[in-house]
């Protein structure tokens, strides 16, 4: 008896959800499109910095230095000037990202005294890329100097590079940015979709007043709750599977761990998102408030959960706060399974945290929802 009522309710909710064509489209096509775009666009590599060049020396040696700067795509020669003020102005107006000034005494100093100075001005607005650029410049000049030594003192005391660092990048040998960002974007999309869809769908019935009609029928409040959660979770699971398909087919992400565990914890995370959405809908009085809170909550969850920047880089306080962020735990597990091939023996603490989250959020939202019904 109860089962047939539950079934009827489930069918009703599912057809209602599917009838909202625009929502279905936004939960299926939009995530795929945004995943493809963001997978390609998100790029933490610092390349193609526009370099303004002021070469007052104009000899072979100074041109060699310019070539060394622009050789590997970190800098591209954007403008040549012959006036220092002109270069300064270009940097001030943001027309170039960096300026290289080679003084007229450059080659003479270098060949006579063995030392010479050039000036590099970097637009420091972006603290991250200017730091990287500074590192590259140190490499470029050192490499340039080593080449010079070989060129001008070939017979000096058996010059050999004394030490070398052999660097390998584990898990991501090509340091492909997409391998870091795509799992993050999947997490962000699932969070955003689950919370918003659940919150807005749950509050809709309250707004339209059909909830009262539902209450007059002899179904238990638990059945109403289940019939709300299951269809939306099903739809979101479909979204998630498509996201994974894009990740594997378009971005060639590896799957080094257990596919079964990946699916289990992904579905668990969807449950957490849906439960949070439901809870929001019970705490707010109307749709505007639901939506504002729902959109707002996504900002800290996504930004502090490590979707786009690593949690390790955050100040200590926020590394602690991340512990109460379900997305943080999900992303550790997701990146662990996909990239590192690790299993429960490594991230079992995060797994327990996720299970606790799922139980807690479901209990709270079920409780609030039931109280609202009675």
């Amino acid at each position: 008896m109860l089962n047939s009522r539950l079934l009827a309710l489930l069918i009703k909710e599912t057809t209602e959800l599917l009838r909202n064509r625009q929502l279905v489209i936004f939960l299926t096509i939009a995530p795929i499109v945004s995943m493809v775009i963001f997978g390609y666009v998100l790029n933490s590599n610092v390349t193609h910095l526009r370099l303004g060049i002021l070469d007052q020396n104009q000899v072979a040696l100074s041109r060699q230095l310019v070539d060394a700067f622009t050789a590997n795509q970190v800098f591209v020669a954007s403008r040549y000037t012959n006036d220092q003020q002109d270069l300064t102005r270009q940097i001030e107006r943001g027309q170039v990202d960096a300026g290289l000034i080679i003084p007229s005494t450059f080659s003479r100093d270098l060949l006579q005294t063995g030392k010479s100075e050039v000036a590099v001005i970097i637009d420091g607005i972006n603290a991250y890329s200017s730091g990287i650029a500074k590192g590259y410049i140190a490499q470029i000049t050192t490499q340039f100097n080593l080449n010079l030594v070989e060129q001008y003192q070939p017979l000096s005391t058996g010059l050999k590079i004394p030490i070398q660092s052999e660097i390998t990048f584990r898990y991501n040998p090509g340091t492909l940015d997409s391998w870091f960002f795509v799992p993050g974007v999947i997490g962000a999309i699932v969070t955003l979709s689950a919370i918003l869809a659940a919150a807005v769908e749950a509050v809709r019935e309250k707004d339209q007043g059909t909830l009262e009609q539902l209450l007059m029928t002899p179904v238990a409040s638990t059945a109403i709750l289940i019939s709300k959660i299951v269809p939306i979770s099903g739809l979101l699971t479909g979204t998630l599977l498509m996201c994974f398909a894009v990740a594997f087919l378009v971005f060639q992400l590896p799957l080094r761990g257990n596919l079964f565990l990946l699916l289990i914890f992904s579905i668990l995370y969807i449950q957490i998102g849906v439960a949070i959405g439901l809870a929001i809908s019970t705490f707010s009085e109307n749709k505007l408030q639901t939506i504002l809170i729902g959109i707002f909550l996504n900002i800290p969850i996504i930004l502090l959960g490590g979707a786009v920047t690593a949690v390790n880089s955050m100040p200590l306080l926020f590394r602690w706060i991340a512990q109460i962020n379900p997305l943080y735990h999900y992303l550790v597990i997701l990146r662990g399974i996909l990239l590192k091939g690790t299993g429960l023996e490594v991230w079992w603490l995060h797994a327990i945290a996720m299970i606790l989250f799922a139980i807690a959020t479901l209990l709270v939202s079920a409780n609030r929802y039931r109280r609202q019904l009675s």
Partner: protein
Amino acid sequence: MMIRRIRNQVFKELQQFQRDRLGVALAFILPVIALLIIGFAIRLEAKNISLVVRDLDRTTLSRSYIERLYATNLFVPAKWQGMRFPDALDRDTAQVQITIPVGFAADAAAGRTGKVQVIIDGSDTINARVSDLAVQGTTLAVVQEQLGQLSETLGVVAQVRLWFNPGRQESLFIVPGSYGVILAIFPPLLIAIALVREKEQGTILQLYASSLSAFELLIGKSLAYIAVGLGEAIILFVVGFFLFGVRFIGDPTPLIIGTPVFMLAGVQLGLIIGTFTTTQSAAVQAIGTIKVLTGFLLAGFLFPLNSVPFPFSIVSYLVPVRYYIELCRDVFVRGSGWFGTWELILAMLILSIAEFALAWWGMRQMQLSS
């Protein structure tokens, strides 16, 4: 006549907005909370990458190498220095493992090349890149030191100067950018909700029946929510000044002109979404996907847009937030005045006019169909 009708529409819209007290409070408080979270928490570069060192050589050279590595101020020793499987990288307790093999110093002294083995966790590409540069920089510094003893020094020294933000404070980069991201989300969201609510409750039909034209309706609604958005912007700038010390450098007029233009673009997008979606749930998903994701990820908020590959780089030019973030960084950090910013404002203006035309067309279609 037309001006009066538009004015009345603005007043009506604001009246309706301020009737929901909690909603108003949320509309002004949530952006500030978002600013606090972003400003305090988001850091691109780690200052404390955990490092596992295994020095098997134990010589002066190997020790000075390790000392130099820590002197970059980038690394901290990992808590657990063990090497067994699953090792520190798998466990996420360290991000870099360095092994200096036996014979490192002997090789270097004998004219062979002593090798340091470095394994970097590549799953976090940002910090992998930073660590890579730091390790290579350390190695090169040691190489130069060693060579300096062997041969006469011959070398170019680059005097690197960082302008505008010499201390590389990340907040100076993140906070002005976050103004753009936050202001791109909230005003469009509010106007889209208002429009769809009117559609769901059927009150929009009354508007269609009135003498108000689609043009006046859109202008009236836009102006009302631009006003709300400007209020949000002022609050953000004040909080940013007091908490993060972000202040005007030079001429503030580009921002004073540019902010309403940016609001216009944002609010138009809200209107477009509001006209083309029929349910609030769809409208919210649309704003959520387009605004939250593009704002954070596609507008150069975190990473420079120079490296974006070709067909996708076009997309970023269509995002008004991109220009506004640049404008904010210019006014609050660089201070180049109108010379460096007029193109940004012009671009936003063109985009918002195009969006307004689309919203107007959509509204006329809707009026005809209902």
